[in-house]
Structures are given as structure tokens and as C-alpha cells.
């Protein structure tokens, strides 16, 4: 979850698009705000300069006679009257300084007494530019030399409060920031609503794709009512694709069934072969008995031969019974039913001179699809027998522990072909990959359908495949019922 939050690329589209729009809107508003504020700043500076010049012009004309005469009262009176006349200029103080740097008069005489020198830090502004803005202290300094006939008769120095102008600027800043963030939030909310609405078909499509673990389900027509033309076309294509997948699945199942029947046919032919062989010997034995039955030793040999042949036939019949039973779907796997597979595979093993080692330690029936489990084991077993060299050994070990049925089939063959190994490693079941037998694919399919899997276990020689099926033991009460 934390990784999701820290990775915007993984955020939902319904979140990313509004956020992107908001960021763009905010960037646009901030850019426009910057331009406007710069312009406002320039306009305010120009306006303040114009106002300051008008103020200084008016004061200069009013003060000049008094300054020339060094008339303290007239200078003060002019400054005092100017305070009410120039309402647009909020002066902290104004001072008239004589050429000897002493104060002739000031609007605040207690701050700048008559005849005193200005403090150096203030006097420094006297010879500065006409307007000096000090934003940190929200003040501006005005300076104007007073000249008569090209002679300096004094200076006019003023400190004015520009907090009102800066307040306008700050108000504009906060207003623009407020508008920017307001628009960004509004666009984010509206964008989220709109994009969510626009992406609703995608959500429906995604839900149908992820509706089942096996196959996607088609989108019902009633869900398409509010879709736009593009999504309607997309959904139609999706439904066609789903239908095609379903048909393919059905075809695969059919192919699997045919494969199973083919295997059965193969088994049947093998069984017929196994039955036919003892039958030939048995008929010969019968003829021997009929011809030489008088001889006890010959008869005894013929009878023994008949017994062995009948035993072989009985084994084959047992295998047939097992095969017949598999036609009936089973909801449980009996330990004995698993053992029957040994007999089914025995003829093929015998034919290929392969030894079967059987270690079935199951003690109770298990709640799982017994037919499928037997089909899987039989397929893997026959493949193992087929892959084993003559005089080789194929071992089957079945056990149940911690809710998991594990049946391992190992052989001494050359190993799995790469396509088969890949198919087992990837657990591919959606379609039968090329270059692998249908038996393997069927086993994979059935294992996946049962909620389990087939894994290849490491082994020094040959191949070891393990079928793992999650299941529970059938309780004794259920058995009694």
C-alpha cells in the first residue's frame, strides 16, 4: 500500500488525470499570478513615484520661500498643513534640512528638533534617489534637493508609510493563491468525477475480465446502456473474444476427453494384448492337458501355466474394473483407488521392462476429485514409464500432510523436454502449448482445476514430478454415512 502511494505511476487513472489537470491549472494560475503581480508591482512603483513627485513638488513650492528665509514656523506650518492636504501620501515624517545639515523644521519636531543634525542613518537617504522603497520595513524614502537659482538652499526628506500599498499587493497575492488553489481543487474534484464516469466502462470491463480465475465472462447488454460508442465497440469485441475463448476451452476439454479415450483405447489394446498372450498359452496348456493330461508332471505344468495366465487375466480385468470405475465422477480419492493405478500401468511397465516402486501411505479417503487425481497420476505414470529406459525404475510415493495430498512420480529417464518443463514451470492451462503432449497438458489442467499444481522436484537422475492437491481427509462420520 505504501509502495502504491509512493509510486504515482501505479495510481489509478481516475486519480492521476485530475491530479495532473490540477497541477497544470495551478501552474497556469501561478504563472499568470506571477505576471500580474509583477505588473502590479511595477504599476504601484510608478504610481508611488508619481504621487511622491507630486507631493514633493507641492511641498517644495510651499516651502521654498520659508526655506530661503530660514523661517522655522512657516516651514513647519507648510509641512503641517501638507499632512491634511496630501491624503494619498501617508507620511511618517517630513523634514526640511538646511545646507549645514541641520533641521529647519520637521513634521515631527520631537523626533527631529530644530537646529539639530539628522542621525547619520537617516541623513544617508538625503542624497539618495528621489524614491527608495524599503519593503522589509514597509516604508519608502523621499528625497528632493531644494534649489533656488542653481543654489542648494536645503533638502526635503520624507519617510512615508507604504504598508497600505503593500497590503494591496499582499491581498492580491493571497487572492491569486486562493483562486489558484481553489481552481486546482475544483478541477481535481470535477476531473475525478468526470474521469471516474468516463472510466466506468473500463472498470466494468476489468471486473468481467477478473470475474473468474478460469475464463472472463461476457459483459451483459444491460451494462452497456450508459457506454459510449467507443466502449460499446470495445465491449462487443471483448464479448466476441470471450465467446471465442469459451469455444476454445470447450474444444480443449473435448480434445482432452478424446485424449483420455485414446489413452483408454491404448490401455484397452494393451490389456487385450496382455490377455491375448496368456490366452494363447492357456489354450496351449488346455491342449496339452487334453493330449497329455495323463502325465502328472505335464498336467501339473499345464495347470500352473493356466494359473499364471488366469492371474494375468485377473490383473487385466482388475485394471479394466478400475478403468470402468473412472467413468463415474468421484468426489473422493480412496487409497485403494490410487493403488489400482499400479495395476493399470503394470502391463506397460512390464512391456517396457520397467520396475514400478509403489509407496502409498494414504490411510483415509480424501475429499478431492478422485477421478481427476487418478487421471493425472496415470498420465504422469505412463509418461514416466515411457521415458524410463529398459530395466529402469519408476517410483510412486503418495502421502497426505497438512491438508495437502502429494504424489511424487519419478523415473530414470533423460529428463523433461524443455517445452514440457516450461509448461510445468509456468503452470500453463489456458491453451495446449505446442510441443507438449496432450497428456501433460491434461494433467496440468486437471491439477489447476482442482486448486493444485504439478511441480518438478530436483533430482540427480531422471525426472521427479509432484502432484500437489489441497484437500481434507474424509471424516469417520462421513465414512459411516
Amino acid at each position, binding site marked *: 500500500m505504501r509502495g502504491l502511494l509512493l509510486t504515482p505511476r501505479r495510481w489509478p487513472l481516475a486519480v492521476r488525470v485530475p491530479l495532473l489537470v490540477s497541477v497544470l491549472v495551478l501552474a497556469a494560475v501561478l504563472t499568470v499570478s506571477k505576471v500580474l503581480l509583477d505588473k502590479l508591482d511595477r504599476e504601484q512603483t510608478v504610481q508611488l513615484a508619481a504621487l511622491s513627485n507630486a507631493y514633493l513638488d507641492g511641498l517644495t513650492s510651499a516651502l521654498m520661500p520659508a526655506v530661503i528665509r530660514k523661517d522655522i*514656523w512657516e516651514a*513647519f*506650518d507648510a509641512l*503641517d498643513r501638507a499632512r491634511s492636504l496630501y491624503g494619498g501620501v501617508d507620511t511618517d515624517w517630513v523634514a526640511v534640512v538646511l545646507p549645514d545639515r541641520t533641521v529647519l523644521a520637521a513634521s515631527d*519636531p520631537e523626533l527631529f*528638533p530644530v537646529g539639530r543634525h539628522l542621525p547619520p542613518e537617516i541623513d544617508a537617504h538625503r542624497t539618495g534617489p528621489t524614491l527608495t522603497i524599503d519593503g522589509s520595513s514597509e516604508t519608502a524614502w523621499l528625497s528632493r534637493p531644494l534649489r533656488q537659482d542653481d543654489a542648494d538652499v536645503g533638502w526635503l526628506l520624507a519617510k512615508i508609510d507604504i504598508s497600505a500599498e503593500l497590503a494591496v499587493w499582499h491581498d492580491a497575492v493571497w487572492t491569486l493563491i486562493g483562486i489558484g488553489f481553489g481552481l486546482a481543487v475544483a478541477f481535481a474534484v470535477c476531473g475525478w468525477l468526470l474521469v471516474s464516469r468516463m472510466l466506468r466502462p473500463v472498470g466494468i470491463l476489468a471486473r468481467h475480465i477478473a470475474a473468474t480465475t478460469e475464463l472472463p465472462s461476457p459483459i451483459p447488454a444491460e451494462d452497456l446502456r450508459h457506454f459510449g460508442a467507443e466502449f460499446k465497440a470495445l465491449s462487443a469485441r471483448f464479448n466476441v473474444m470471450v465467446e471465442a475463448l469459451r469455444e476454445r476451452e470447450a474444444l480443449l476439454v473435448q480434445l482432452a476427453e478424446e485424449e483420455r479415450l485414446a489413452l483408454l483405447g491404448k490401455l484397452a489394446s494393451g490389456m487385450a494384448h496382455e490377455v491375448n498372450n496368456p490366452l494363447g498359452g492357456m489354450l496351449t496348456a488346455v491342449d496339452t492337458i487334453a493330449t497329455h493330461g495323463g502325465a502328472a508332471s505335464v498336467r501339473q505344468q499345464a495347470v500352473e501355466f493356466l494359473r499364471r495366465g488366469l492371474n494375468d487375466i485377473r490383473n487385466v480385468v482388475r485394471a479394466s474394473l478400475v478403468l470402468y470405475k473412472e467413468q463415474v465422477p468421484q468426489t473422493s480419492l480412496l487409497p485403494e483407488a490410487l493403488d489400482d493405478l499400479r495395476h493399470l500401468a503394470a502391463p506397460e511397465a512390464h512391456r517396457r521392462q520397467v520396475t514400478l516402486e509403489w509407496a502409498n501411505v494414504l490411510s483415509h479417503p480424501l475429499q478431492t476429485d478422485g477421478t481427476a487425481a487418478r487421471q493425472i497420476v496415470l498420465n504422469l505414470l505412463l509418461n514416466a514409464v515411457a521415458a524410463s529406459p529398459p530395466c529402469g525404475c519408476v517410483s510412486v510415493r503418495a502421502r497426505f500432510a497438512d491438508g495437502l495430498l502429494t504424489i511424487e512420480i519419478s523415473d530414470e529417464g533423460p529428463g523433461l523436454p524443455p517445452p514440457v518443463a516450461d509448461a510445468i514451470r509456468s503452470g500453463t492451462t489456458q491453451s495446449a502449448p505446442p510441443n507438449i503432449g496432450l497428456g501433460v497438458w491434461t494433467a496440468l489442467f486437471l491439477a489447476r482445476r482442482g486448486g493444485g499444481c504439478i511441480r518438478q522436484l530436483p533430482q540427480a537422475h531422471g525426472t521427479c514430478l509432484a502432484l500437489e492437491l489441497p484437500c481434507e481427509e474424509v471424516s469417520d462420520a462421513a465414512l459411516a454415512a
Partner: protein
Amino acid sequence: MSKLEPWVGSGVWRRRALLAIGLAATGVRRGSAAPESLRFGLTPVFVDSDMQLLSALQSYLVEVTDRPIELVQRRTYQEITAMLLADQIDAAWICGFPFVRWRDRLSLLAVPVYHGHPLYQSYLIVGRDRAATSFFDLKGDVHAFSDPDSNSGWLVTRHLLLEHGTTPSAFFSRTFFTYGHRNVVRAVAAGLAQSGSVDGYVWNVLSEREPKLASQTRILRRSEWLGFPPIAVTSARRESPDVKLLGTALVTMASSDKGRLLLKMLELDRFTTSDPSLFDPIARMYHDVEAAS
């Protein structure tokens, strides 16, 4: 109080006589097709910045004299005094100092009566919060005078310094004239000057009308009682009908509602006639200062 009686001709019979003379003069003028304006000069010996007061004064004089009245104001006492001496104005409300300076050419037309007497004082004022307790604490001050021709706003303080053997330039660090008693109060209140010489009557009026301004100052020293700034005319025209008409209007001010309203605005009791000896103390100060100079 009895000391003041000889200076004040306040008898009822006298006011009535003056009024009769004034009315007679008015009747003569009424015969003219275009009556000539009477020009009345004003100085800041009162609160001359009060436009309502000026309007009421003009209205009263027009009504009583039945003549156009032109109130003439200038920045300095000197200008008004010069206009009076040059007969450019018929009469002027000037200070006692120019009156005594030009005593040989000027005559009294009327004298205001303030709080029962035609007298007033000069105040030395300082900032409200200043710790000064005596005149000597003002040494080194920037001091504001009212006018170089003002008794209360210059001569009294100058004479006080003379009595202590010093001069304004020596005692104070710097001095300047504001050309108005109200301006002296403004200068001290604003801190432009640490102390000031001001007309006591004007300061008292300001303390009632503009308490916010006057309360920023306080009185450090009051002078002795001196002759209130008079309405003066040139001696040559003292008996002219126009001058008599003005004089009658002034001394009869308290006899009409409009006049009483005007007196209330001026915060004066009335106008009266007086003997020039009322200004002898000012004359002595003037002569002392002149002698020292």
C-alpha cells in the same frame, strides 16, 4: 478693582451719548448713493482664524453702522499698523505695544473688557509634560514668539529677560516668530518650540474652543495685568464720522442681541472707552527695551 476705574469710561450715559453720535453719523451717510466701505483692520490679538467669528463681526458692524464693512487682515502686526498710520484703514484692533510705540499718532477708539477689566496677561507656556517649574528652566530652549510688534508675544518676555540682564538670543538657543498667538500654541504643542510667549486671552479662549490643542501646553508663568489690545485709530481721524460710527458700534455691542452673541463668541464682556494711560506699563517696558537696545 478701584485702580482700574479711571481707565474705564463705562458709564451708561456715556455709551448712550456715543450711540447718539454714531446714529447721527449713520443718518448722514444714508443720504449717499453709494456709501463708502469702512475698513477695519484685524490682528491676531484674538482668535482671528475663526471664520464664523469674523463673519459675525462683519455682520454686526454692517448692521449697526449701515455701511459696508471690509475686514482687513495681514500676516503681521506691522503691516496692519502701517496701513492704519497710512490711513489705508479706518481703525484697527492692534496690540498695546504698537499703540504705545505710535502713541503720538494713534488714539484709542475702544478697549475690550475681559473678565470685568480691560486687562490681560502674557503667558509663558511649555509642553504639557515638561518638568520646568520656573522661567529659568527655559534657558537653552527653542522659543516661539508671536510677533515682533506683539506685547504679550514678544515685549513682555523680552522685558523679562532684560530684567534678568539677558537677551532672547543669549537666553534661548533659538527663537522664531509664528505671527499668531494660536501658532505659538501649535508650535509648543507640536514640540517645534520648547516654550512660547503667548497672549493669555487667546490661550484661554483656545483652551475652551480647542482643548485638544491647548491641553498639550501648560502655563509656566503669567505676567502682570496689562492693557488689553485696543481698537486704535489715527489721532487725525479720531473725530471723523466714520471713526465715531465704528467706535459707537463697538462700545454699544452689548446692547443688542447680535452684539451680545458676538461678545460671547469673543468671550469678552464688552467694549469700552479708556484713557491711554491704561497702556503706560507697556510703554514703560517698551522704553526700557528701547533704552537697552
